[in-house]
């Protein structure tokens, strides 16, 4: 038996050394080439953010910042909210799926006295910290290519994970090398001065509304992992930062395609409660319920989160009514 143990240990060590040599070689190559695939598909995000930051900083204060992903970008009209509520409003929704990174970027425009309204899409509550071997997302690509400072501030594990997968994805992205995202090239021009999307009229609806019929799929241990989830932790830190800087946070829910009544059954009602409880615990006011913002198929532009311009008006009206009371102090202050 001893002979077997020694043989096993000997062979394991040799095998491990060989593996480590190949792994080191991989990382060496990866550190040289990882930026190649990272650039693909993220070029358009830079002018988009630069433009929104510029718009946000040009607006007078105190202001209302609409923060979230593409649902905010498409489905809320900051222009209308500014007019109706009498508060300078910026649509800081991001079409790029940058998950928790938006909480970092918004800090560039959020100032003392501002209010941040966060009707986050549901994937913000279950996005996880990227595993070492998981594919890079737009978030990692963007950070590695355009925000080196933020990248360097990340823990070593996250930096290694981005490098490792960045190179790995080069193989998978070979046939995507012609990605130009030409439709986004004129992005700044497609935004209003409040940061709203301009070209989303129902008549411009793409021929096929992609992914619209997907009910949101929460993974099976979502409920138990919720509070410890990576993005929820990041959101929690962002709320803490806001409160420390005298920035008010108001939470709500995104516009969503009412998929065959699915959200009224099964796990969904409980999950919605979980989200509300989270905000309550953080002393963040929540306005409306998820069910207030469920809309029929015809109201959507190109995904189950993006309303077209007509439905956006309807949705914005609802949100304005819900925000009128909580924001009355800001309105009064401006009137004074």
């Amino acid at each position, binding site marked *: *038996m001893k002979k*077997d*143990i020694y*043989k*096993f240990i000997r*062979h394991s060590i040799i*095998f491990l050394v*060989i*593996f480590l040599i*190949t792994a080191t070689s991989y990382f060496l190559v990866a550190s040289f080439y990882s930026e190649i695939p990272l650039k693909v598909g993220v070029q358009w995000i830079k002018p988009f953010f630069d433009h929104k930051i510029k718009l946000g900083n040009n607006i007078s204060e105190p202001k209302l910042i609409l923060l979230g992903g593409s649902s905010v970008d498409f489905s809320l009209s900051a222009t209308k909210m500014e007019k109706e509520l009498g508060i300078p409003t910026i649509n800081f929704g991001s079409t790029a799926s940058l998950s928790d990174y938006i909480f970092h970027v918004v800090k560039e425009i959020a100032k003392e006295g501002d209010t941040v309204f966060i009707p986050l899409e549901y994937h913000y509550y279950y996005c*996880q910290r990227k*595993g*070492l*071997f*998981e594919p890079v997302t737009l978030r990692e690509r963007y950070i590695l290519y355009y925000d080196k400072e933020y990248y360097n501030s990340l823990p070593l594990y996250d930096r290694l994970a981005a490098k490792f997968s960045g190179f*790995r994805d080069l*193989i*998978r*992205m*070979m*046939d*995507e090398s012609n990605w130009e995202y030409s439709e986004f090239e004129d992005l700044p021009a497609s935004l209003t001065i409040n940061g709203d999307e301009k070209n989303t009229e129902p008549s411009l609806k793409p021929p*096929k509304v*992609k992914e619209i*019929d*997907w*009910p949101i*799929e929460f*993974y*099976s*241990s979502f409920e*138990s992992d919720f509070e410890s989830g990576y993005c929820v932790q990041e959101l929690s830190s962002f709320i803490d930062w806001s409160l420390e800087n005298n920035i008010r946070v108001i939470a709500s829910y995104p516009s969503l395609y009412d998929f065959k009544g699915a959200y009224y059954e099964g796990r969904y009602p*409980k999950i919605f409660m979980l989200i509300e409880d989270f905000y309550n615990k953080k002393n963040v006011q929540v306005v409306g319920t998820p069910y207030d913002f469920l809309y029929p198929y015809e109201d959507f532009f190109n995904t189950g989160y993006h309303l077209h311009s007509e439905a956006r008006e309807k949705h914005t009206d609802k949100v304005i009514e819900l925000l009128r009371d909580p924001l009355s102090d800001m309105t009064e202050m401006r009137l004074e």
Partner: protein
Amino acid sequence: MLFNSLQFLVFFPVVVFLYFLFPHKYRWTLLLGASYYFYMCWKPEYVILIIASTLIDYFAGQQIYNARSKVKKKLFLTISLISNLGILAAFKYFNFFSDSVRVIFEQFSVDMSLPVLNVLLPVGISFYTFQTLSYTLDIYRGQIKPQKHLGIFAVYVSFFPQLVAGPIERAKNLLPQFFEKHNFDYYRISNGLKLMLWGFYKKLVIADGVALAVNKAFANPAEQTGATLVLATVLFAFQIFCDFSGYSDIAIGAAQVLGFKLMTNFKRPYHAHSISNFWKRWHISLSTWFRDYLYIPLGGSRVKIPRWYLNLFIVFLVSGLWHGANWTFVIWGGLHGFYLIMSLVTKKWREKLLVFTRFDKLKRIHYLFQVVFTFILVNIGWIFFRANSLSDVKIIFGKMYEFILLWPDLITQKLSIREVISFHSIQEKLALTKIDLAIVFGAILFMELVHLLQAQVGVRKFMSSKPLIVRWAVYLILIWAILLFGVFGHKEFIYFQF
């Protein structure tokens, strides 16, 4: 705890290390603790169900064995059956039955609102319930003696490698192994680790590699085309095989490292030349369970022909229901029962036809035809298995029928293949790029080549004939294939839900 998690990557070596460090006498305590911890990582409170099952069957087993009268034996067996199946029914089937009753009453305009249980299905409940049931049933039949050592019996019920997704072990195979002293054996351990590696390859590269495309196709079949649905069904066939057999390989490999020999669960099922042959190769531990504890007690084939067919049909219906509390699973089971009955009914005609067409002389081509035809039949079954509802099944078959109607035009070249299916449509509908497809089909092809090798000479025999450097290069390539092409993240095994 998932096998494909970092947690397991730490847990398993620690358990193995401690296992060989512990004196043989106390190893069961380590295995029991590790097994309960393994299960509790998912939902701690549900371990109570395993403990309840263990205690019920431990005492029922003793009572059945010690009872002098047949009536008493039957009584304790009934207690065991009712308790185990009762727990299973409550957690897995209650909502299905209450919903079905409600729908039936609705047909007669009667509003019958039955209560709904809002509980999570305990992971692996069908697996460990069937394992413990086989124990009491075997004692009742006088095939085994009850286990006196409660601790070892508890390990038998909860043994972590096969606790949540099988193979469903039998007491006479597994229980005695807990009393055997397993020494540190280099070859056994390295073989176990290699089998685990192969299981991870199947799970992470193939099963999880196609999961997104399959989910997308079946989530909304109305948005798909017939061609993409055919592709998604074939991909699902490989997904479910690689997911489940991958789990079995990891389970068998992990047990082998510890010195245990679990039963084979899969034998290249897509190489089956008939449906009955398929069931001798697919989820063997479950099909033999149904054979021994349901089919044979029903009379098996030693009854009149109509009754035999009915027996077969019942077994497959129950097997379908075992897989899930949904009519789609029941129909899937029923369909396989129907296939088997039809193969028996038409056997003589088929043989005559074979002789008449002289196809019987072309054995290889005939065999290949049988394999392909069986694969098609199995895939038709998978549509019921995977579809979210019966209305989705209808849509899928409708779209596939439309696709078949295009074939004459394709053959006569009135229509080009690109108009029916293109990389662009696959990318749009299934979110699979050319590279993704190349990786997935390359990985499947490699797996099938290994299967062929396994059928011809045996993979271990083939590998052991190669020099060490070649063998290690293959293992290293396999590890890097997993790291580079595997899909990592929160991916559970499909069979957990059963």
